[in-house]
């Protein structure tokens, strides 16, 4: 696990190169597959399991994390030369907490239904290790544009992982799939007798465990 995290730090010789578009693209793609925060780094597990009962919650949480990650990465990369090294962690936490406060006020005002169903997990984005981790290993060492690429990549990787887990849980657990009240499809036999286990907490642990094992088996991830 240690060297995997090292790989996800930016190498020093990448900074200051001319080929900017390529670097941006590289940092962006890295977050989605090679350094997928959930499946590869095993970070941010609490929201991953808690909000993947329905796909609506997964999408809302993914959007929220992208917003906070983008905001904190931009601010921290701009301030990285001003922040004294000794107090950097408290500074990062305050920046992140400010963005989480903005996020929860926005959700409460514009999408109150989603705000209700996410509950305390929306506020808990502040202790999501992904965001503090990116601030520490990436944004505090790189410029703003690369930090934006990193935030978008890692945020999208996190959202994709959430969507994957919630697809399994919602389809197996309710026998149907609906996004924001609009029903996409309905499996006849399953929706009358849904496997409620998958929507309940134990189902979350089982789905992510099996998914991780399958990814390793087909060779997307390395074995430990």
């Amino acid at each position: 696990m240690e060297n995997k995290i090292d790989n996800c730090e930016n190498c020093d010789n990448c900074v200051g190169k001319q080929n900017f578009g390529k670097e941006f693209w590289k940092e962006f793609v890295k977050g989605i597959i090679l350094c997928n925060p959930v499946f590869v780094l095993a970070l941010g597990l609490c929201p991953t399991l808690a909000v993947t009962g329905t796909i609506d919650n997964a999408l809302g949480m993914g959007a929220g994390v992208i917003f906070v990650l983008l905001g904190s990465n931009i601010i921290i990369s701009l301030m990285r030369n001003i922040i004294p090294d000794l107090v950097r962690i408290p500074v990062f936490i305050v920046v992140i907490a400010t963005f989480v406060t903005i996020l929860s006020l926005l959700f409460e005002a514009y999408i109150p239904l989603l705000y209700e169903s996410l509950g305390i997990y929306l506020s808990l984005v502040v202790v999501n290790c992904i965001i503090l981790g990116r601030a520490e290993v990436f944004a505090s060492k790189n410029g703003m544009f690369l930090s934006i690429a990193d935030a978008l990549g890692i945020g999208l990787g996190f959202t994709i992982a959430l969507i994957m887990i919630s697809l399994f849980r919602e389809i197996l657990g309710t026998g149907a799939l609906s996004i924001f009240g609009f029903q996409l499809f309905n499996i006849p036999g399953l929706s009358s007798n849904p496997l409620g286990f998958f929507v309940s907490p134990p189902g979350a642990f089982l789905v992510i465990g099996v998914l991780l094992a399958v990814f390793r088996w087909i060779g997307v991830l390395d074995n430990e």
Partner: protein
Amino acid sequence: MNNLISIFILMAIVNNIVLAKFLGLCPFFGVSKKLSNALSMGLAVTLVMLIASISTTVIYNYLLVPFQVEFMRIVLYILVIASLVQMVELAIKRTNVALYNSLGIYLPLITTNCAVLGVALINSTENYTILQSTVSALGGGVGFSLVLIIMSGIREKLELSEAPESMEGLPIAFITAAMLALAFLGFRGMI
């Protein structure tokens, strides 16, 4: 009194913070490989959770609510918890060196443990009084330690058994946790 007992049981067993609310999963999977580490971590989390819940409830009830700035709670709570962890670390270092050595690196890690902030947020969402928050934090801490200790016992045996190659490590730990959560689901009828 009945109310307090039911809050304790609710937090410790029925709505267990790890297995039902998914809080504090990082230490749950990270530290649960050895029984002795699990004990130290459980103790440290319970201690910090207790102090943090009492102080955040005081701040919420007597500072944020009267001035109608409840939206500031995320920033304030995280600062309170971060500084509390530092203070607890210093206090333990001064008074009990043996305990400090056994807790070691786990104390600073608690700052980013979502269980501590989670319990503080649950307390203020439920509008608990100071006494109720104390009991709820105690229940949360006991529940966390209980599950961590059970899990580390299972994982010590799991290390020796043969799992399919792609299941080794984290995947099998998740599936074990699923079984454990299923067992805890049985307590749902209690309250």
